[in-house]
């Protein structure tokens, strides 16, 4: 598995990669910043500071579980993947489908009775759980929606934000 191929896949899958900086860790070029939520309609796209996270976390596998960095930490995964090599795909999007519940995905999952990993998270879930989960655990970093991605106008309308401060329903109860 060449690191070059690695890089290409990472680059393609993450979408817009602003800067390439060679880094010692995996002898591969990793992005310093990644623009996430590119096709968001309710929330605006935003830049994810990859470099800062690398600095603070040191361990790639903290996020990129079993794809790069230290391999297989989770004892549950280690039952089978003790000796598995890093996968070709590093980016979240490469594995975690953006449409985990589309009819096609579901039909495929349902048809494959022997499939083991039936419960693979979708991209959105994986990202949010990874970020918010870690921020909560570490007691640092944003956990609120708009702390990462500000809303678009459509998003404001969607959440009926203009009604903020109006009397909540339960206050009106007789």
């Amino acid at each position, binding site marked *: 598995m060449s690191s070059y191929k690695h890089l290409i896949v990472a680059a393609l899958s993450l979408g817009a990669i602003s800067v390439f900086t060679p880094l010692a860790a995996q002898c591969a070029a990793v992005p310093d910043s990644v623009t996430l939520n590119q096709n968001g309609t309710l929330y605006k796209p935003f830049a994810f500071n990859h470099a800062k996270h690398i600095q603070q976390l040191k361990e790639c596998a903290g996020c990129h579980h079993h794809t790069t960095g230290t391999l297989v930490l989770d004892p549950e995964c280690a039952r089978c993947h003790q000796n598995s090599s890093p996968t070709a795909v590093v980016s979240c999007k490469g594995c975690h489908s953006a449409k985990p519940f*589309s009819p096609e995905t*579901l039909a495929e999952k349902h048809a494959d009775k022997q499939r083991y990993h039936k*419960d693979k998270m979708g991209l959105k879930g994986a990202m*949010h759980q990874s970020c918010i989960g870690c921020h909560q655990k570490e007691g640092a970093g944003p956990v609120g929606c708009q702390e990462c991605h500000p809303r678009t106008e459509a998003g404001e309308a*969607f*959440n*009926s934000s203009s009604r903020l401060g109006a009397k*909540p*329903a339960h206050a009106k109860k007789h």
Partner: protein
Amino acid sequence: MKRRNFLKACLIGGTTIAMGKTNKGWASGSFEGYPESMGVLVDTTRCIGCRSCEAACNKEQKLPEPDTSFDDKSVFEEPRRPTAKAYTVVNQYEKEKPGGPVYRKVQCNHCNEPACLTSCFVNAYTKTKEGAVIYNSKVCVGCRNCMIACPFNVPGYDYESVTNPVIKKCILCYDTRLKVGKPPACVDICPQEALTFGHRADLIKIAHERIRSNPDRYLDHVYGEKEVGGTSWLYLSGTEFDKIGFDPSLSNDPIISNVKDFLGMVPMVLSIWPALFSGIHLLSKHDSGGEGHDTESKEEEP
């Protein structure tokens, strides 16, 4: 011409029996749900209480604007229930617990054998093969028996409407999404994937697999797998279910099984009563006078 009288009584009895047969109709047998039924697995340990699902439901079902913004966290002060204006609500529990608050989304659980369906006297409800419990509001009379019957207190009534008040509840986005295989709007929007959409049979396996691989995170129970005969919505929790608004006292039998004692009695009354009472009448006719004894008491023996 006692015979004529007797025949008359039999005729009346007979016609009512015919009616009674239909009354009994589908009241027996147990139904495990459609094999291809879809469902949603709710992982309450993942929910962060963002209320996006409430917003998505509001827009998808074209419900009236909410009283307050979906950003308003003050709604968590009191537990809420689904209403005609909000088919789903998120409630907050266990605020003081070290693990932080636990959130739980409430909506129709789409039972395999829905109590609302079996209690509806105009048969407005349908359990579709996709698993959704939908209803035809064009025939809803507004008796609100389904609200009495629902073990989860889900259906809301549109009391404010004067000309066309009807029952309203979550339909699993049947018309706009489920019918074409798409997940309901709340599942689509959930950032945490606290909601997992899929075939109900698969979801049960997934749920148990999550419990197996994270025994510390979850209680060993999938709520909705067996409750009231099984529901399309299933729940995992790390906190005792009764602490996050679930009714742990619900039996695994569908609600209709409580009613079967009565429904079973109906054809008996319809067939035995006419003969019994016509007979008593014929007997008492010769019993000249018929005074002194207490005939009333006979009526109490069913």
